């Protein structure tokens, strides 16, 4: 036995599969593509109590919950009563490189990039040929591959916007313990831009792909965002390009949802020609304590009759807005979806204080409640890109560039007509600053606010104060280094290639 027994030391997992099985057919590729998307929708492939990531509570570790915290809690649009790790730092604008939420977001974004890298590596022409995938199947997998490249570009954009100078890994990087190099923000801008340009011709035409999968219009919408904020990222503005790509989306056949509120309801996946790309959730099949489950439940408590929001067993009583957001709305503006009368917050820890944002509701358009395993998980899909944003992007870029301003006003009025139900809210002139307010009215709680305030120079400065900005009730300015989030200290330690962002 002495020699043959040593062979017993080669044990393999009973249920594990190798790469050739995980990517063995077009069906198998689709399972792996589903993971590339699920990486930003779910916390793990094994249920809502598990996470792809370590070092963070599983239920907090999905992309939207983390991204929303970073983009909204740090602004005038939201304030949280919870004292969970890292949460209070956002509104106080006092986060450190130890912040748990920021570490989670950073890790989640790069995790999705890693999954996409693996997909891209496993779907080269050579790999397809070696696995005998040809003809229509090969063509299908090539679309998958372009989508994986798009998703990777999207997450690199998020990292560039948030952390400026993240680690850089591609399909050429090896899985193991090596330390990825750091990429500078301006270089990352070029990389994201080049990737989006490259996949443009490889993706499906707008509105021809399956619901939930990216097409050319998604890439254009991301490019429009990229160019609108180019000045922040590189010091050089790209407003004409922002207009070009916003226009490509606007002319691609999308149309606004008739009723604004229906964009954020449980069956927003049907009869919706406004959403360009969404992150999809389901109360039975895509369970998650982040995503829209978080957005619905954290905004209401037991006192607000959770059943009327489609979550009979939910209501976590966490997030509400400062008075600055409701104050932006005219009385007739139907986008003002708030609950409660007290808009002033004197005690940060009291959920009763401050208006609740009830924009996301887990009800179908016919007021029925969709199926949900526990009456907490929601069905609302999160609109990652939608037509409404493109009108605003075009308008702002045009007004900033001083060209095509009449188109800009038109687009603003298209949105306002839906908001008011008639032309009573139409405007004839609009300033660049007006667009910021309009963006707040149209896009509040859709994870754009921090980026917008930074582009307008209002995030850290004293030019705009909101209640409890910087941790004081009247609001105060903070140091400019808070315009960029810190690289999480855990990664600075683990990866000696990384240099911390200035000020942290």
């Amino acid at each position, binding site marked *: 036995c002495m020699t043959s027994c040593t062979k*017993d*030391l*080669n*044990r393999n*997992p*009973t*249920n*594990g599969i*190798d*790469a050739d099985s*995980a990517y063995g057919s077009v069906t198998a590729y689709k*399972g792996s593509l*589903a993971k590339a998307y699920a990486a930003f*929708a*779910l916390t*793990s*492939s*094994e*249920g*809502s109590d598990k996470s792809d990531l*370590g*070092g963070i*509570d599983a239920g907090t570790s999905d992309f939207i919950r983390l991204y929303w915290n970073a983009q909204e809690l740090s602004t005038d649009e939201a304030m949280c009563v919870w004292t*969970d*790790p890292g949460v209070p730092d956002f509104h106080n604008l*006092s986060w*450190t490189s130890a912040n*748990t939420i920021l570490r989670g977001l950073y890790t989640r974004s790069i995790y999705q990039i*890693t999954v996409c890298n*693996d997909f891209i590596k496993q779907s080269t022409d050579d790999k397809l040929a070696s696995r005998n995938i040809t003809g229509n199947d090969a063509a299908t997998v090539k679309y998958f591959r372009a989508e994986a490249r798009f998703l990777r570009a999207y997450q690199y954009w998020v990292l560039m916007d948030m952390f400026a100078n993240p*680690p850089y*890994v591609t399909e050429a990087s090896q*899985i*193991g*313990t090596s*330390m*990825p190099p750091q990429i500078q923000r301006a270089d990352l801008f070029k990389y994201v831009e080049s990737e989006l340009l490259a996949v443009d011709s490889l993706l499906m035409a707008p509105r021809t792909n*399956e*619901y*939930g*999968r990216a097409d050319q219009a998604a890439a254009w919408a991301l490019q429009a965002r990229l160019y609108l904020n180019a000045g922040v990222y590189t010091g050089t503005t790209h407003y004409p390009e922002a207009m070009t790509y916003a226009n490509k989306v606007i002319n691609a056949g999308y149309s606004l949802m008739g009723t604004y509120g229906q964009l954020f309801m449980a069956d927003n996946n049907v009869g919706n020609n406004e959403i360009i790309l969404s992150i*999809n959730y*389901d109360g039975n*099949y*895509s*369970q998650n304590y982040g995503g829209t489950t978080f957005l619905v439940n954290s905004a209401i*408590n*037991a006192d607000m*009759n959770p059943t009327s929001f489609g979550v*009979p067993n*939910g209501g*976590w*009583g966490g997030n509400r807005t400062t008075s600055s957001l409701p104050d932006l709305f005219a009385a007739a503006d139907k986008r003002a979806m708030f609950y409660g009368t007290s808009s002033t917050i004197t005690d940060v820890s009291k959920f009763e204080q401050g208006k609740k944002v009830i924009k996301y509701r887990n009800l179908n358009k016919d007021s029925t409640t969709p199926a949900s*395993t526990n009456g907490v998980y929601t069905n609302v899909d999160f609109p990652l890109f939608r037509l409404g944003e493109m009108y605003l992007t075009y308008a702002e870029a045009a007004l900033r560039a001083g060209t095509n301003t009449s188109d800009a006003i038109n687009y603003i009025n298209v949105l306002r007509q839906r908001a008011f139900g008639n032309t009573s809210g139409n405007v004839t002139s609009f300033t660049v600053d007006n667009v910021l307010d309009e963006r707040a009215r149209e896009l509040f709680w859709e994870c754009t606010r921090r980026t917008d305030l930074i582009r307008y120079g209002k995030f850290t400065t004293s030019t705009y104060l909101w209640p409890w900005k910087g941790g004081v009730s009247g609001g105060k300015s903070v140091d400019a280094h808070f315009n960029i989030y810190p690289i999480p*200290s*855990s*990664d*600075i*330690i*683990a990866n000696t290639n990384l240099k911390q962002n200035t000020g942290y």
Partner: protein
Amino acid sequence: KITDSKDGSPLADVSILVKGSTIGTRTKADGTFTLRIPAGKDSLELTSLNYATQVVAIEGTTINVRLEATNAALGEVVVIGYGTAKKKELTGSVVSVGSKDFQKGTITSPDQLIAGKVPGVSITPAGGQPGSGSTIRIRGGASISGSNDPLYVIDGVPVANSVQSISGVSNPMALINPNDIENITVLKDAASTAIYGSRASNGVILITTKKGKSGKPVLNFSTNVSSSKAARYVDVLSAAQVRSYVQAQGDTTYTKLLGSANTNWQKEIFRTAVANDNNLSVSGAIKKVPYRVSVGFLNQDGILKNDHLDRYSAAINVSPKFFDDHLKVDINLKGTIAKSRFGNQDAISSALTFDPTQTVYSGKSAYGGYFEWVDANGALNTNAPKNPVGLLNQKEDRGQVNRSFGNIQFDYKLHFLPELRANLNLGYDIAKGDGYTFIPQEAASNYSTGGSHTIYKQKVNNRVGEFFLNYNKDLKQIKSNINVTAGYGYYDNLTTTYNYPTLNARDSVLKAVTYAYDKPRNTLISYYARLIYTFDSKYILSASYRTDGSSKFAPDYRWGKFPSVGVTWRASQENFLKGIDWLSDLKVRGTYGVTGNQDGIGNYGYIGSYSYSANNTALYQFGNTFYYTTYGAAYITNLRWEETRSANIGLDFGFFKNRITGSIDYYEKKTKDLLGPITLPVGSNFTNIVTANVGNMSNKGVELAINASIINHKDFSWNAGFNIAYNKNTITSLTQSTDSSFAGNTTGGITGGTGNTIQIHSVGYSPNAFYVYKQVYDKNGKPIEGVYADLNGDHKVDDNDLYRYKSPFPKFILGFTTDVTYKKWTLATVLRGNIGNYVYNNVAANIGITSVINNTNKYISNAASDAFKTGFQYNQFFSDYYVQNASFLRMDNLSLSYNVGRVLNNKVGMTVMANCQNVFVITKYKGVDPEVGYLGTYPSVYTGVDYKIYPRPRTYTLGVNLTFN
């Protein structure tokens, strides 16, 4: 007549065998015996527990023999790995405890038998659940996130412990009947444990079970009955206090919610629990073959209602000898059936917070008739705690485990070379555990899903094969003895876990499973050798070497090397010390060795593979179709052994003819390639934290044990033993790069908020140091809510002001045992203590605040009484106020026994016993119990976080022991 060599008292039950025959008998109570000697036989072999075996020549018709007692606390011959050794010649730090010195009373799990008895070994019972295990730490443990549990070896067969758990029982060790155990030996230093190589870093516990003895059959029956009760409840507000607080606030929303009852919820869920333990054994010899057969039946209630354990056990030992005693065969078989009903421990935390002004039952039919918090429409308030009695009674949680383990050992002394022995030991450990939980659809706890129904099943199939050769020869001409052992071992651990979907009470599938089963498996192959060289019975050199190959590591990292060396000098044998009258024994020991650890990492951590998920709750929607996902698992190709290098210096001494004996040990352990949760460079793998080898830790400590026979008189004797151990563990490295700004890896999840942790592993500190803010107090010594010291002086209090404050690890652990015998009465006690261990009082931190009472989610909650002491309105989770000194002294055991003597026509020996466990605790700790074990799940390091603790009961036991011979 057989008598004690010291006091001349008669010895009963001494086994007498005519050498070279099967003829034998036993002494009566007065020490006398009669025996017919066949012709041609000339000597008798006399054996008795705790006395040295003696062979006497038959001279005349009357024989009087005085037997010499072996050291009462520590048997003369002790088992070591792959053999035995004389205690006086031991090189390593080894402590052996015989059955006579075990803790008495209602003891379900063997690990509790030696609590407080061995220096440097801390045994912390998990709580009061029947059959629950203990957290055992030998010299503080050597790992951070790997396992810190010692290796258990029963009759030479390593068995499943907490690392390879068995579903359906709270603790695999509880499947071993303590009554079948003869002796427990703890190997502490590397020289003793290195022969177990890669599994030895946390010490080794060798269990020897009772064997048959030659002579006429002896039947022993023992039974005991016990009654247990919670010793203390968590200090929460009374109904009157809650009522007056709510009324004083004057908010009608809440005054309306008040009930009129006075319910003590803790008393509603706990009870006085009765247990009954019966054991019957027969031992003797049939022809020349000694045997022992035993059966046991334990029937134990837990103090938490519905908690119950029935354990049926049987053991068989047969030890025949063949070929003129050249071949010894030893067969041990054990079988256990354990049927458990587990009480719902969620009720324990709910009982603390549930409103004491409410009644248990609502008088309505909804939710099974239990009072629950509902809104105006009768819908459940999902944020409110659930009725504790409902939680208990509406969950049926049953499990059954059938386990058998055993071995057959052939020991062959070669005919042509009797100094050489060949030993083959084949062992197995198989178990099947299955069970289910069921919660009906009307139960409030699972109302949203329509109840719950889960099923589980697991099989364990472990096999062991060992073969060694031993050569032991006295070389009289050079006053030497050499003892050489070389061997091979094969260990295969296979678990089969069946997966079942999660169902609701109507058996609708809530969560499907991907695979019907999984079969995690690991295999270990070993080669080992040991040399013990003794010169002139004074100088002893021992050296061992083991190499282990594990399936958990890639071929390049698979084999670990574990050498050790030790020297012993028996100074008292030197002529210059022989003249010193009072010095009866003096021995100096020094050892150094390397051991390993691989427990706590997955079986396949080095293999890159993908998994296909068919979990129907984690799909992704494209179009109108939901797709299962396929995902890559993180892997680390260079996973390798955790390696501990340790040195030990010891001194054993005996004074006044060994009336006083003792030992002192100093040790240092350095663990490298510590297996721990390592933060990977993000982007380098399929996750960011994996278990890998980064980091180092050191342990240093001193141990002292003294045993004294203070009074030793025929009618009156008094023995006492005391041990104390100091241990300090420090993390010396945690990361690949060195960066002083790295705070460490947070750990120690707490109840309250989402994702909060209270501890940190930091370089330069003990593992699990509490990571907290420094509370600021007012001039009356009352903590000021939310005010913390600005420790870094930057005029703001943020993450950077957290500091490392104390740790859950005790600096000192103490044990004290004593027994006094007067004529037929014996009074014995065991005390245990820890000094310098701290506990995070999570109960007080979570509900010791006033704002929980008028809960914002529109229900009334109870609060810990601490709320009125601090006056805190909101949670201050990270205040060091809640990190409390949990040093304690506990009287573990107090027992009184009376040796009735011979009854029933002098045919039966009878002893009766009364016993109290957990007699008292002296501590400053403000929570319910300073000893915070773990609740259920591995890893089970001293958690140091006090929440939802199953209280340790105070137990009174009455027992009787009958010996028929």
